[in-house]
């Protein structure tokens, strides 16, 4: 337990407190988008747009931090041989991954909170506090499958390849899951793909909750499926990596 709490303390320092560029990037871009489309380019938008776009930008922030921040940091830990130290130490990699996941959830909470505060106090979103809290909790928990894929991306190769893949994934996922503009604006094939993505399903859950609509298990099952696929892919990748060691 002590190894976990110490690792978490270090991860909070290096991923959040001493990482201002990434944190500003992860929060700043979604906040800027949100303000731009709700306060400046808002002509003809329905009144519910302020709420749904706040949720979308909160999810977009978690997509950025879970993929970009995680992939870059796990890759750095790999390149700096920290993971090899873990492998010869009495503590397993599970402690390391759990700690990264927890630090990311804290970062996610902060990001979503900032976007909600901007929505509530600056844009003027009218939602009960309980709905905002629900959105905060759901978006944070639903970011776990994204974090798993962030870790997985770090194992794909060199830093140039990882960075290329990160941006090839983040922006299409944001567009296809309807975070930037409504899913209905995409062609039918795009909508089919978009509805399978974890980010879209998170928005479905949050919008159902804040609009007091009926509860459905389907989005949760899709999110869990992504989590399971990602976790197995990490296990498989690590086995392949171990086979290659010292080659």
């Amino acid at each position, binding site marked *: 337990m*002590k*190894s976990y*709490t*110490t*690792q978490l303390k*270090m991860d909070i*320092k*290096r991923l959040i407190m*001493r*990482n201002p560029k990434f944190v500003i990037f992860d929060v700043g871009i979604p906040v800027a988008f949100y303000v731009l489309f709700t306060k400046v380019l808002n002509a003809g938008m329905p009144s519910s747009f302020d709420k749904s776009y706040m949720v979308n930008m909160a999810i977009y922030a978690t997509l950025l931090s879970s993929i970009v921040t995680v992939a870059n*940091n796990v890759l*750095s*830990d790999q390149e*700096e*041989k*920290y993971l*090899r*130290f873990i*492998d*010869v*130490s*009495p*503590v397993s990699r599970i402690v390391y991954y759990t700690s990264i996941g927890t630090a990311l959830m804290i970062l996610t909470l902060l990001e979503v909170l900032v976007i909600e505060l901007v929505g509530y106090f600056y844009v003027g979103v009218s939602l009960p506090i309980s709905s905002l809290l629900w959105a905060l909790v759901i978006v944070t928990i639903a970011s776990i499958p994204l974090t798993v894929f962030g870790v997985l991306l770090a194992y794909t190769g060199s830093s140039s390849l990882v960075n290329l893949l990160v941006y090839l994934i983040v922006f299409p996922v944001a567009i296809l899951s309807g975070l930037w503009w409504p899913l209905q604006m995409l062609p039918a094939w795009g909508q089919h793909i978009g509805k399978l993505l974890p980010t879209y399903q998170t928005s479905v859950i949050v919008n159902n909750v804040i609009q007091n609509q009926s509860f459905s298990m389907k989005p949760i099952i899709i999110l869990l499926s992504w989590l399971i696929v990602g976790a197995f892919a990490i296990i498989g990748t690590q086995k392949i990596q*171990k086979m290659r*060691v*010292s*080659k």
Partner: protein
Amino acid sequence: MATIVKANNISKHFGQKLVLDGVSFGIHKGEIVGLIGENGAGKSTLINIILGLDSPSSGHVSLFDKKNDDKSVKDKVGVMFQDSYGLSRIRGTEMVELVRSHFANPLPIATINELAGLGPDMRTMVLKMSGGQRRKLNFALAMAGDPDILFLDEPTAGMDSTSRYEFWNQVRQLSQAGKTIFVTSHYLEEIEDIASRIIFLRNHQILFDGTMANLKNRFTKSIVEFDTRKPEKEIIAYVHTGSLDSDNQGHYTFTTDDPDKLIQELVPVISEIQHIKITQNTLDQIFREVMKEGQN
């Protein structure tokens, strides 16, 4: 004497490529074992297999009579790898705190800081430290868990000569305190100075496993030099266990397998002999000779 590491008939293939071929040895408590061999002889693969970072194609390794992935085993093992490890945006002092948290009975922080010998620079971010500072920090981190056995893979690479001298003094003190040490280095004079036992890998197998003295006996002849006014013919008549390499104006050089016996053969004329000197090849010379033999 307790055997800490047991390697039994280890072989390793990467596809068609053979890297280790039937390697067996044991490491006993308190030994300082130096592993030598040319690049590609399989040293790193062997260390990775002992530490459980890689698995052998055949054969078996145990540490403290247990599997090498056992948590209780890892608690007693310290490793300083060839390339230093670290974490981005984390200070040296924080790295010590983090690594200590991995072990059941870590050394006190003050002892670890003393081993690193970095003074106030311990507060520098690890990735901003110089190469030499990171080596020192990694050595201290390898000791953080107060291990019974310490693996040092090219530990002095990147250190200046003063740091290297201090480093080996620390290793000697650890050995005197009962730690077992397994070390590889390209600086063979360092291995020669520190190791109580040498394991020499060549062509993926163990060519030699024993003390430095035995290695020298097995692979090199001694050189006996002296000055005398006696004529060459007379000197040669006395010496039966060596061959004359050179006679340079009364400075004779013989090579022999048994320098003690050669000196005894010179006893009848010893009063007319001055400046006797017996030398043996260094580990570095032996290494180059053995490698040359292998190529021929």
